[in-house]
């Protein structure tokens, strides 16, 4: 496949990964998933509830063609719980992908690097394609790559904050140095930020709140899809060099100033 996103043993056409949280209804979420063209879609886990037995999102999501589910480990406070969540997620979805996230502090939701690393090592051994959600830390990104993770997912800013690319300079370092796909996850608010990530060579973005909390999630999903595609294409095309001075694009002829008779 031309210019595919390789993760584990799979190649994806779409470079927009979508989260399914915070949508106002399952129908809205499904419409956004379709409009986004995303092929890798995250889900969380919860206890089965007898009163809400029909409220299962796995069935309708699994019914959408071309979608691979990626369970997350949200709620895990440490490596042990994250491994457990990953095993449960694989049981339900049959997917080898896991979004590894361990963020014990509910106020800032910053990922715990030590527990995340420990869980990543164990999950790689268990045969998962591990996509760890991390702070924009190039050292940790390299350690996780060396541990066998399928990608690294540094945050743009705090989960759900819409603060955009607050970590821009470190993202640039990670994108430049990573030997596995670098996927910017969390904090994005606008499609232009997604395009910026792709222009600077990011391999993909994972978006949830920016789409789920938009006035029209389906339309915003499509907007992100277009932005990701545009940014990727611009990266492949190669941006022109920046210049400190102007450089005319039209001939600067003198005839307009010629003296009249």
């Amino acid at each position, binding site marked *: 496949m031309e210019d595919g996103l390789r993760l584990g043993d799979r190649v994806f056409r779409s470079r927009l990964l979508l989260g399914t949280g915070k949508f106002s209804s399952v129908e809205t979420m499904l419409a956004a998933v379709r409009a986004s063209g995303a092929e890798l879609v995250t889900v969380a886990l919860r206890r089965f509830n007898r009163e809400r037995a029909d409220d299962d999102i*796995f069935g309708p999501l699994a019914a959408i063609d071309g979608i691979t589910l990626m369970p997350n480990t949200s709620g895990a406070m440490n490596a042990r719980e994250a491994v457990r969540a990953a095993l449960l997620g694989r049981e339900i979805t049959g997917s080898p992908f896991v979004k590894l996230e361990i963020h014990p502090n509910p106020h800032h939701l910053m990922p715990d690097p030590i527990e995340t690393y420990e869980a990543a090592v164990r999950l790689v051994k268990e045969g998962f394609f591990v996509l760890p959600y991390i702070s924009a830390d190039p050292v940790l990104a390299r350690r996780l790559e060396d541990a066998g993770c399928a990608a690294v997912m540094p945050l743009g800013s705090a*989960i759900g904050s819409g603060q955009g690319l607050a970590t821009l300079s470190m993202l640039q370092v990670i994108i430049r140095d990573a030997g596995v796909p670098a996927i910017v996850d969390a904090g994005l608010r606008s499609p232009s930020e997604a395009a910026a990530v792709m222009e600077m060579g990011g391999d993909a973005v994972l978006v949830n709140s920016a789409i789920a909390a938009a006035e029209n999630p389906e339309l915003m999903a499509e907007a992100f899809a277009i932005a990701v595609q545009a940014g990727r294409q611009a990266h492949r095309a190669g941006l022109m060099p920046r210049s400190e001075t102007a450089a005319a694009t039209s001939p600067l002829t003198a005839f307009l100033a010629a003296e009249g008779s």
Partner: protein
Amino acid sequence: MNLVVNGEPYPHSGQGTVAELLEEFRAAPAMTALMINGEVVRRSHWDSVRLAEGDEVEMIVAAAGG
């Protein structure tokens, strides 16, 4: 036998098989994952499981999340 299912006491009247328990809860086996006493039990091992008095069972399903 008395089990604890998803954190709540639950009196189970059958033989303690996973299939019975899921049926009692009307949980779809293909969409459910199980943890017994803190251990994830893979679907392929469900048939060999016999629940015992006091066992703690977690029935987990997929949910919306980012």
